[in-house]
């Protein structure tokens, strides 16, 4: 179909139905008539041709027959007369009779004038051109005696065509008019219901008012159409009503479902645990943000994937590790549960898991803290126990040692009892040493804090402790000069060095071995030196170290873990308090200790003390007399232990002092008030049941701010010692003390006066 046809049919298609009906009727009528007319004219034309040919042939034959005699007897006149009869046929233009030799016997012309006859053609024939020329031989008894040629113009055909054309056109016009008039009446029967229906449809479409009804005009197909349309409208109307109702219900249900869904989704997204849910084919349909964060995946990389591909875990012992997208291992805790839907059974699975890294870390930290607390509690209780024992021991030892040494002094040196009494004193000394170690372990044995150069101190101490070292063990020193000072109790430093060096030497056993003693300075913080052996974490800063290394048998890790426990020993003769004491001393000095050891590889102990800014003063050398000068003055001795009071009185009175005794702080203060003008100085025990040393000191200071008080204690704490330092103590007497020590302290205090 070409474009013209398409547009033509579209034009027709888009016409209103009235015009369309009209156009159809008119076009059909016109086309039918036109075809009929053309057919008739064409048929007539062709029929007429044949008819004309036959007619002319007949005419020619008649004329020819009538001309035979004229030809035979050479009579042009009669021939001419014969031809003249052709005048009756006005369309014959001309006619000629030829003799057999081609000469013209006679001719006829419509116009009257002589016509020049064309040269004859032999035989019979009809030639059509602008006119018809028929050539007819003239026969007489079967012999051709001449030829007749007739020319006939086609005016008749044109006339007939014109006539037919005008007739057809006229009929066409008339029939179109009739068709128009008829159809304009008849079309209404079709067009009106259709237009009405279209109008109704249009207004329904425009207003969406399905209560509109189309009017029914006829009982034909259009009537049926209108009925069907109306029925359809009422159907739509009722369905619309139902639909709106259903839709509203559905919308409500949907809104509710959406609300529920959103709420559930928000809930799932808000859960602190990771949640993944899958469909029945184990493909992930939901993953909350926590899950995505843990898996290190985006939502796009997760949703729709098989759960095995996304949630990959490794079991190790009791632990489950999640392998994340970036190949990290995260310890997790997880549960799986099927999603059971009503009716269709298992619709998938829900996986809940959580990262337990932090929890485990906290748990481990808690364990460590608890361990530390337990260790501290153990130390605390041990310390209390040790302190209690040491206190009593010290008081007893003061009595033993004091009386023994007094007894030795009273006897002449040659007396046989002197060595025995000396043994008592030595044993008492060792007992005192043991007590000190117990106190050191409990952290209550530190009293005299000085700025110390560790290298210098080691050099001084070493000769004092070298006695128990076997000759097979060589001691090598590497002491760094110009070390920063540390705050330390020298006697406790001695304890450390002694314990560690002797241990080192004993580790070598009977084999030849070496002990390397070294000092150094090191920068340390908690990362390089984590807390160990129940010690508190160290402060970052410069530390002074003491390293003692042996080439001995070394220790297993198992042994190493226990070496600082009190009463743990590997030695047959050991009491198991040496290293415990070392640890206690280090703790009270805010230091730390490191142990490196392996079986047969030797052991290295490294002790660190915090360095302080300050210089080590040249030690004040007190003039110490081997024999104390006889003292003068009255000394008030306040102590709740009778044996201590008596020993002190004996020693002091033997040295020439007047002695007043008091059995507790209250009595002390009362006696001090009573004999204020006599008392030169007071020896005050710190720990007493009725009034302790501290309160007594305060009251005495109130009575006489210039009073000289020497504090005496077996286990005073560092803090207390320091506090008393600022309160004008004349000195400190550590229990248990020898009479020599007592007299030395008292003598010094008498000379120096209070408030040092």
């Amino acid at each position, binding site marked *: 179909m070409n474009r013209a046809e398409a547009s033509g049919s579209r034009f027709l298609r888009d016409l209103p139905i009235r015009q369309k009906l009209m156009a159809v009727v008119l076009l059909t009528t016109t086309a039918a008539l036109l075809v009929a007319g053309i057919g008739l004219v064409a048929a007539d034309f062709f029929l007429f041709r044949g008819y004309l040919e036959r007619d002319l042939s007949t005419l020619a034959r008649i004329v020819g027959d009538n001309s035979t*005699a*004229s030809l*035979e*007897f*050479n*009579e042009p006149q009669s021939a001419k007369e014969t031809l003249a009869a052709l005048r009756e046929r006005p369309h014959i233009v001309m006619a000629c009779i030829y003799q057999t*030799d081609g000469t013209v016997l006679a001719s006829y012309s419509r116009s009257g004038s002589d016509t020049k006859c064309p040269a004859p053609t032999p035989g019979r024939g009809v030639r059509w051109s602008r006119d018809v020329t028929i050539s007819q031989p003239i026969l007489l008894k079967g012999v051709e005696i001449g030829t007749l040629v007739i020319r006939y113009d086609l005016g008749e055909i044109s006339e007939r065509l014109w006539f037919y054309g005008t007739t057809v056109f006229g009929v066409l016009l008339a029939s179109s008019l009739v068709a128009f008039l008829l159809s304009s009446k008849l079309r209404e029967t079709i067009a009106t219901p259709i237009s009405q229906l279209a109008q109704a449809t249009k207004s329904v479409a425009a207003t969406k008012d399905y209560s509109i009804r189309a009017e029914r005009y006829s009982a034909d197909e259009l009537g049926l159409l209108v009925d069907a349309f109306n029925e359809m409208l009422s159907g739509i109307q009722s369905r619309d009503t139902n639909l709106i109702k259903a839709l509203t219900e559905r919308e409500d249900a949907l809104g509710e479902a959406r609300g529920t869904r959103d709420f559930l989704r928000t809930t799932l997204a808000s859960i602190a645990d990771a949640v993944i849910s899958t469909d029945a084919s184990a493909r992930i349909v939901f993953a909350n943000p926590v899950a995505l964060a843990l898996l290190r995946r985006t939502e796009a990389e997760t949703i729709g994937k098989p759960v095995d591909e996304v949630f990959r875990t490794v079991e190790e012992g009791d632990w489950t590790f999640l392998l994340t997208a970036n190949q990290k291992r995260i310890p997790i805790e997880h549960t799986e549960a099927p999603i059971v839907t009503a009716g269709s059974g298992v619709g998938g699975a829900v996986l809940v898991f959580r990262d337990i890294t932090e929890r485990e870390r906290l748990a481990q930290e808690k364990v460590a803290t608890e361990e530390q607390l337990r260790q501290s509690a153990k130390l605390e209780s041990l310390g209390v126990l040790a302190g209690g024992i040491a206190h009593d021991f010290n008081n007893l030892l003061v009595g033993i040692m004091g009386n023994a040494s007094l007894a030795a002094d009273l006897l002449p040196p040659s007396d046989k009892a002197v060595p025995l009494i000396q043994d008592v004193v030595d044993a008492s000394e060792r007992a005192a040493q043991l007590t000190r170690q117990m106190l050191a372990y409990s952290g209550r044995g530190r009293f005299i804090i000085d700025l110390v150069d560790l290298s210098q101190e080691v050099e001084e101490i070493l000769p004092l402790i070298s006695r128990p070292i076997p000759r097979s063990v060589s001691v090598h020193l590497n002491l760094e000069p110009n070390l920063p000072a540390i705050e330390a109790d020298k006697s406790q430093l001695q304890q450390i060095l002694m314990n560690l060096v002797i241990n080192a030497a004993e580790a070598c056993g009977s084999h030849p071995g070496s002990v390397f003693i070294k000092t150094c300075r090191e920068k340390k913080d908690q990362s390089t030196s984590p807390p160990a052996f129940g010690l508190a974490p160290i402060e970052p800063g410069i530390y002074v170290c003491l390293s003692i290394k042996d080439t001995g048998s070394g220790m297993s890790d198992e042994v190493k873990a226990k070496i600082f426990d009190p009463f743990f020993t590997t030695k047959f003769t050991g009491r198991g308090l040496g290293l415990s004491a070392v640890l206690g001393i280090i703790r009270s000095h805010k230091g730390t200790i490191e142990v490196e050891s392996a079986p047969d590889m030797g052991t290295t102990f490294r002790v660190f003390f915090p360095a302080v800014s300050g210089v080590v003063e040249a030690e004040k050398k007190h003039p110490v007399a081997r024999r104390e000068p006889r003292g003068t003055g009255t000394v008030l001795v306040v102590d709740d232990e009778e044996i201590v009071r008596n020993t002190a009185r004996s020693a002091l009175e033997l040295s020439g002092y007047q002695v007043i005794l008091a059995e507790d702080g209250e009595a002390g203060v009362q006696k001090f008030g009573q004999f204020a003008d006599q008392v030169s100085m007071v020896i005050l025990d710190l720990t007493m049941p009725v009034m302790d040393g501290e309160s007594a000191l305060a009251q005495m200071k109130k009575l006489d701010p210039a009073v000289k008080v020497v504090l005496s204690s077996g286990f005073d704490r560092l803090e207390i010692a320091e506090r008393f330092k600022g309160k004008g103590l004349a000195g400190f007497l550590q229990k248990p003390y020898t009479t020599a020590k007592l007299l030395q302290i008292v003598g010094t205090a008498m000379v120096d006066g209070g408030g040092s």
Partner: protein
Amino acid sequence: MSQIVRTIFAAGKVLCLLAAATGAHAADEYRVKAAFLMNFTKFVDWPPASFSSETAPFSICILGSDPFGAALDSIVDGEAVDSHKLVVHRFGQPPQPGVCQVLFVGGSVRKDLGQILEEVGPGVLTVGEGDNFLLEGGIIAFVIDNRRVRFDINQSAAAKAELKMNAKLLGVARSVTK
């Protein structure tokens, strides 16, 4: 003999005839009249009784002196009227009835012409020359009209001779006597 050859042959004879007619030459006059004699046979119907049999010859008889000479013989040669072959006979005395179908009475016969024509009997087309011939009871008479050979016809004589004259022949005659 094919139709074309025959036609050409006939055309040749006509050509000669026409040359004589149009020329109106004295020598050619009888050549035209000879042709006319034969042509008459085509426009006249003879009663069947004129022939003794179906194949009996059609005789053109010349009574008296023969003005045609060889011309008539050559024209007639090979021609026929229906199934009757054309032949030419020449008589000095009037022939017996039933012998001739065409009797040309030459100008030399003047004596007893009326009687001769009377006795010649039915079925004979009598042809003569001059106006007098018809008056004596002849059927066709050659005349010279405006230097052309033409003929007159006596229709009553023809009827008397039981001959049917074709209307076309009558049409081309100069005059027809009833």
